[in-house]
């Protein structure tokens, strides 16, 4: 493909995107230029809000016009300006010459149509292939994207497929008309690490087989290093650095690129210390959800979300719970904090709490706190930050005067690194990282001994993640907190947890000091997880589902 280097397939020149809302105009993308040559993979890297998705969407003019507009720029595809193209011409390009795959495989397929119908529709639309010919082609595509037994899957509906399979179907749809350019907008962000590795491997093979170009949008530098030929680093609507992948990683020029590269969670977990008092202890914890069937709703079986787990957690230490989605790690955390009912012994600071009712638990709630995954969902949008943080104080320390409570709230905000004067604002005025700090402040203001952290970093940008990890570690050393750290992100777990449980389908796969598990994993599943998380390698292990 090197002979075609002179003429880029896609050339974006000085592209700007502006959004108008209620008399306000904001510039989301500011004079961005980049080229994609034939057979090349270009990655557009940046944190949320940097304008990378907006840039990619404007290539196919998928923005909400007329509230979006392009004050400057041109997008030349095969020498033709797409920004000036008519709707009819654009429709021909979309799904035919240029195709897109999106982040959320759950919502980008129509839940009411079968897989066959959705893929065949594109074939019919652009190539006029129908009937048996279409079916053959659909089967061929499903084979290509690695769906096992495609004949059986033809009549399946999206809800019958796993997240990874759905993303494969999306890729099959994108490949259906042999596009010249594939735009992948965070295609693996919503997937588990092992599945992510498989999808990346698939995209790489497909690109090599078809000689396709790819524009890959991501915030994950690990993926970039794995798949891209060239990188464009974007921040605040501008491309600050462009260059070959190897060069950018070995010799970053711009300060922001350096900042991004340094953003990996760093630091060491607390050292295991058996002399510390045990805060949380559990034996044979089981959470079974009954499956009822028949006219009398008899219990025929159980979904074993958590199936016999033992653990013990000491003050000032962190127990990491690792597993893919559906492995029961959050359910385990909720059972330990008695938010859902469970079987087995649970002891909190020596007190057996397994049979406590919700009322019995109330006096203990200030000593065990939860920080939830989604900082956008876990803060009530209708309460000011001071009310959100002060709510627990009202329950547990009702003797406090308004003034004292306000001082405690302000102190908690300062402790998590936020300006105390911001406590009168609403959550929506804060960024994701700031919101997570507020959620942490809400837990910390009660001076807990045990904190369950349910994926506290996974909704955040990479550099913010590192800051939150540092914050959590500082708080832990300061207050000798015991953390139950639930995550699917092994890098964060390595930086925080000194002990670790690897969970799969409600059961423990491997349990022990994290140092030992990271350096010498014994179980095949753990090995596959590690390979996928750290090297983005898909390991063919029967333990890993497709």
């Amino acid at each position, binding site marked *: 493909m090197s002979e075609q280097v002179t003429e880029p397939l896609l050339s974006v020149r000085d592209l700007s995107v502006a959004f108008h809302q*209620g008399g306000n105009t904001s510039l989301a993308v500011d004079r961005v230029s980049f080229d994609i040559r034939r057979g090349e993979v270009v990655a557009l890297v940046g944190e949320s809000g940097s304008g990378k998705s907006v840039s990619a969407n404007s290539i196919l003019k998928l923005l909400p016009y007329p509230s979006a507009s392009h004050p400057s720029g041109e997008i030349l595809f095969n020498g033709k300006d797409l920004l000036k193209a008519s709707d009819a011409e654009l429709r021909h390009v979309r799904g035919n010459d240029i195709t897109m795959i999106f982040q959320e495989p759950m919502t980008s397929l129509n839940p009411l149509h079968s897989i066959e119908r959705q893929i065949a529709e594109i074939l019919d639309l652009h190539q006029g292939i129908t009937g048996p010919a279409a079916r053959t082609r659909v089967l061929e595509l499903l084979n290509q994207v690695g769906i096992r037994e495609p004949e059986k899957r033809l009549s399946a509906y999206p809800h019958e497929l796993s997240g990874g399979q759905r993303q494969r179907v999306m890729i099959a749809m994108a490949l259906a008309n042999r596009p010249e350019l594939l735009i992948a907008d965070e295609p693996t962000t919503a997937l588990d690490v092992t599945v992510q590795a498989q999808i990346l491997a698939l995209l790489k093979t497909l690109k090599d087989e078809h000689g396709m170009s790819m524009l890959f949008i991501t915030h994950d530098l690990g993926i970039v290093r794995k798949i891209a030929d060239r990188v464009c680093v974007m921040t605040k609507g501008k491309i600050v650095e462009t260059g070959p992948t190897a060069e950018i990683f070995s010799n970053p020029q711009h300060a922001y690129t350096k900042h991004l590269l340094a953003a990996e969670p760093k630091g060491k977990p607390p050292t295991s210390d058996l002399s510390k008092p045990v805060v949380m202890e559990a034996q044979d914890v089981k959470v079974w959800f009954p499956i009822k069937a028949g006219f009398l709703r008899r219990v025929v079986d159980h979904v074993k979300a958590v199936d016999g787990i033992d653990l013990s957690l000491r003050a000032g230490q962190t127990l990491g719970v690792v597993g893919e989605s559906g492995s029961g790690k959050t359910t385990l955390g909720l059972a330990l904090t008695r*938010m859902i009912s469970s079987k087995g012994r649970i002891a909190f600071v020596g007190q057996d709490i397994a049979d406590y009712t*919700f009322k019995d638990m109330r006096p*203990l709630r200030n000593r065990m706190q*939860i920080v*939830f995954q989604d900082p956008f*969902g876990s803060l009530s949008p209708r*309460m000011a930050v001071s009310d959100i943080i002060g*709510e627990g104080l009202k329950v547990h320390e009702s003797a406090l005067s308004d003034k004292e409570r306000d001082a405690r709230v302000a102190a908690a905000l300062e402790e998590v690194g936020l300006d105390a004067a911001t406590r009168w604002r609403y959550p929506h005025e804060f960024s994701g990282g700031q919101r997570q700090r507020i959620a942490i402040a809400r837990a910390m203001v009660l001076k807990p001994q045990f904190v369950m952290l349910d994926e506290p970093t996974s909704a955040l940008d990479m550099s913010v993640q590192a800051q939150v990890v540092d914050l959590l570690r500082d708080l832990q050393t300061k207050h000798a907190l015991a953390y139950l750290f639930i995550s699917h992100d092994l890098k964060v777990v390595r930086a925080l947890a000194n002990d670790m449980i690897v969970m799969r389908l409600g059961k423990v796969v491997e349990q022990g000091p994290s140092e030992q598990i990271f350096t010498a994993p014994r179980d095949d599943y753990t090995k596959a997880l590690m390979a996928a998380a750290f090297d983005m390698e898909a390991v063919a292990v029967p333990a890993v589902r497709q």
Partner: protein
Amino acid sequence: MSDVVSRATVAEPRAGWLTPVNQRRLQNFKANKRGYWSFWIFMVLFVLSLFAEFIANDKPLIASYKGEILFPVVVNYPEEKFGGFLAETDYRSDFIRDEIQANGWMIWPPIRYSYNTANSNIPHSAPTAPFWLMDAGERCSGYPLGSEDPGCTLGNLNWLGTDDQARDVTARMIYGFRISVLFGLALTIASAVVGVSAGAVQGYFGGWTDLLMQRFIEIWSSMPVLYILLIIAAIMPPGFFVLLGIMLLFSWVGFVGVVRAEFLRARNFEYVRAARALGVGNLTIMWRHLLPNAMVATLTFLPFILSGSITTLTSLDFLGFGMPPGSASLGELIAQGKSNLQAPWLGLTAFIVMSVMLSLLIFVGEAVRDAFDPRKTFQ
């Protein structure tokens, strides 16, 4: 986070009784110009109508009689005092008027009729047209001395004409507006309290509570309201509170659906779970975390319920099953307009009052809804 600055603890000054949160809501409310103006217009009309006795009455506001200052509008003086024999003084009669004027003076409200005062000096048979549709001679022809008569003053003329019982339409309109708004407000607030509580309990607890209450509501709301009203009207004489009670029995159901849906949706929100993890009690969670969610849905609903209640009262009055005969009501005015097509001022007055009132309420409702929306951006 580079934008995080660590500053000394400064308490944001709270202006008066409003927290910053409520100040922002107020600002949001004001930002909706149409709603804001509608609110003030409606408040002025409503407050004025609350003092209807001082605007339209058949008693003078203040009178001076033989050196004594009297307040006939608030105090009931027997006619004896002025040399008559009735238990209640008819200040409009020529005899009393001349007697007081000979021994002092009196100040009348702008309109010298109450809602049930009949004009005994109408120029021709009732209903009579507004005075400005007649020439000077004709409008005073009902008085003994014609246009020279001292009784033929602006306050005594019928600004919007009279109805078929020679009662002043302006006075009836003012009193009718007041009773409509009061009835609507009372019914809306009462049914919101009942309906929101019922919906909240159903949505929050779910399961059997929800199932049983939902079935009960289905049966309850399929009752024929109008027939029940007719039956009850036959047993006890309808009045303001009887009507309010009967209407409340059925109108609270309207709120249950939206509130229940909001609570069902929101009870699994992460911040509700977070509140449970803090040890917050059920009632507090419902009140503090879930109710504000449901409030927007309720508030969106509120103006419709309010205008609906007003319309219901009006239509019951129109049919003759509403307020007791003789009381001021817009529905009765419409009914009169229907039976007296030759007197269009009856129907037109009722129509204009109804439409202005309902429009203002809807505009205010929209602005209130905007004010409670935290994601609303305003400049």
